[in-house]
């Protein structure tokens, strides 16, 4: 028996009711939105259920939507059922002022470094993560560079020698 998107959706709505929303199938991949507080419960269900068996976390990343008031940061989980080779995508949204998300490291070991990376670039605070420090950027960095509040070319930056590029700076 094949595991179809309809089956997954039925099982999820049977368990969580209307708490899950925004079911879509872009390019055939089931995608839905969950409340931030429920992320672990949904993933635990997807992991433990004998039929669903989403036991591999392929990817974990964040997206910054500066225009969505109160839900600026999205955290996206890509889950994979290796036995049936089926993938799904789960999104949760948190406000940028208080980007607290429960860590998935207890469930998926691969979440460890991916959550560190997501923290590094977007500042998502993963509660319960064993070692939530920067992974790729320099430790002295004081901001989260992939957030869209930072302009690509910031004229107030002091680490750039603008005199070499003829666009302001100390030279003119």
């Amino acid at each position, binding site marked *: 028996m094949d595991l179809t998107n309809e089956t997954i959706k039925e099982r999820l709505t049977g368990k969580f009711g209307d708490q899950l929303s925004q079911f879509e199938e872009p390019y055939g991949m089931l995608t839905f939105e969950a409340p931030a507080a429920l992320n672990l419960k949904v993933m635990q269900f997807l992991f433990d259920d004998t039929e669903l068996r989403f036991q591999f976390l392929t990817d974990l990343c964040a997206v910054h939507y500066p225009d969505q008031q109160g839900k600026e940061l999205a955290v996206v989980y890509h889950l994979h059922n290796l036995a049936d080779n089926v993938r799904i995508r789960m999104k949760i949204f948190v406000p940028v002022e208080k980007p607290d998300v429960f860590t998935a490291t207890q469930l998926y070991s691969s979440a460890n470094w991916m959550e560190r990376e997501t923290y590094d670039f977007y500042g998502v605070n993963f509660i319960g993560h064993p070692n939530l420090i920067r992974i*790729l*950027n*320099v430790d002295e*960095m004081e*901001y989260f*560079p992939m957030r869209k509040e*930072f302009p*690509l*070319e910031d004229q107030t930056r002091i*680490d*750039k*020698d603008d005199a*070499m*590029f003829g666009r302001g700076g100390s030279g003119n």
Partner: protein
Amino acid sequence: MKLRRSSDYLNFLYMSRPVRFNVHPIKADIKDNISLSDMPEGHTGEGFFATSMNSVVGLARKNSLWPLPFATSCCGIEFMATMASHYDLARFGAERLGFSPRQCDLLMVMGTIAKKMGPILKQVYLQMAEPRWVMAVGACAASGGIFDCYSVLQGIDQVIPVDVYVPGCPPRPEAILDGFMRIQDLVGAESLRRRNGEQYKELMQSYGIQ
């Protein structure tokens, strides 16, 4: 095509090759064709030659530089071409690449240096013994290049002092050779006392180097 005589066969052989390498090789002219550096200025007479210590040491240093390649990206590929037989950096006395900073006197930084790599580059520089020179090859090493972003060091002169900048993205081997010759000019003309001078100490201090 039917080949009857051996001369036919030879003709066919020559005609079928559009590029005829080594058919009539030219003998290399090695007589009186050895590169020598010019003598420094001095007083000469029968059986003696007197000049200043500076120029003798400079002459020796500039023609036996040991480069340390610090290659991180595409400029490093150009440097490989520079070292290879066609451009042949060995002609300038830089035959020997040292892959240990302790032995080398010219640090050639080629490629993008990320901010996270800045301390490592500085450590390599500190491990080199005086006198040491630094060449920033390419736009990235000189200024950050196209990478105007949060992760890339905007020029290595933010961490270590640089003697010669070679522009280009990436620079051609000729440009790297030109930069190397500028380094040679600096080395040959450098005063023996420069590294003990106040100005040099101030420069080191400005980079936090004792």
